[in-house]
């Protein structure tokens, strides 16, 4: 029963995490967005649990809901999700003991997103190594339940609320994602990529460039990368 206690401890830690509030705002907005773009409630809930990554869910919802091509969506999701790989890799040494089996790590890997990655590094060192997988599963469960309730609420609120409030709900998505991106930007490359992406994408969309999101992402990201490298080589 050690596992169950560790799982509950993880849930409590999740309920106290600052990410709970961020998730609440983000998924309220994503639920409202899915509603307004015509997705079913079931689709929205399945997407939340299966994807479990805010940026990917925003990309698939907004691009599938508008007119993007399937190739463009798949490439945009692939590129945006690469950041999950180093997160899983850096959490693994904290989770794995000599007794841990591979299949026990599949759920923690699925639950890995920026929330678990940041909080895991902070909290796991204080948890006994044998309890860490159960702790992480509990933590992820608390956040997933929050996100499911939030996305459900956002979906219904977009349908029932008066227009003024429903538009404020939809506005949560661009605001919360933009601030989170800015907060997570450490390098000059990240900061420039954010600013250039915000500026170049509308220009490409305005001129109806095909695969606009993809090209603007590659262009803005690559420009930002070279600016960062030039500054580094000069330093």
């Amino acid at each position, binding site marked *: 029963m050690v596992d169950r206690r560790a799982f509950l401890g993880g849930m409590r830690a999740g309920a106290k995490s600052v990410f709970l509030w961020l998730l609440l705002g983000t998924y309220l907005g994503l639920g409202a967005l899915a509603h307004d773009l015509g997705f079913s409630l079931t689709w929205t809930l399945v*997407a939340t649990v299966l994807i479990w990554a805010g940026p990917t869910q925003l990309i698939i919802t907004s691009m599938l809901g508008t007119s993007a091509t399937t190739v463009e969506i798949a490439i945009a999701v692939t590129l945006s999700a690469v950041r999950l790989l180093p997160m899983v890799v850096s959490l693994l040494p904290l989770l794995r003991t000599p007794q841990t089996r591979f299949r026990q790590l599949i759920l923690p890997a699925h639950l890995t997103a920026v929330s678990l990655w940041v909080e895991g590094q902070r909290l796991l060192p204080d948890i006994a190594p044998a309890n860490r997988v159960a702790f992480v599963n509990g933590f992820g469960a608390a956040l997933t339940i929050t996100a499911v309730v939030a996305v459900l609420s956002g979906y219904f609120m977009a349908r029932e609320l008066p227009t003024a409030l429903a*538009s404020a709900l*939809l506005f949560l998505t661009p605001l919360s994602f933009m601030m989170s991106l800015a907060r997570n930007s450490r*390098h000059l*490359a990240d900061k420039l990529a954010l600013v250039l992406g*915000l500026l170049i994408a509308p220009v490409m969309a305005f001129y109806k460039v095909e695969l606009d999101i993809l090209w603007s992402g590659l262009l803005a990201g690559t420009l930002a*990368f070279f600016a960062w490298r030039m500054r580094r080589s000069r330093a």
Partner: protein
Amino acid sequence: MSAAFGDLAPYLALVLLGFLPNEIWRFFGLIVAHGIDERSDTIVWVRAVATAILAGVIAKIVLFAPGTLADVPLTIRVGAVIIGFGAFLAARRSVFVGVAVGEIALMTGAWAAG
């Protein structure tokens, strides 16, 4: 048959275009034996492109607003994002303050515009 496929199409798209290209990186993370240097040029470039893609999606939601958000005039939407971001920076990068001020700006602007 085609009706059933019509119902399933969004789920097929979700799994093929959303779930798989997303989850594969978590799975790779499990089987990669060695650590990855967060400072390597490739990782920095990928992160920059990922950030810019998301920035582009955000910008398009603000400019070509979906659903009821389209009822709020464009200048007010853009203005509210700028005000919210200013508040975020002024409040030492507090996401909560930035989102709250941006929302207040949007609602005030929409109300004033009638």
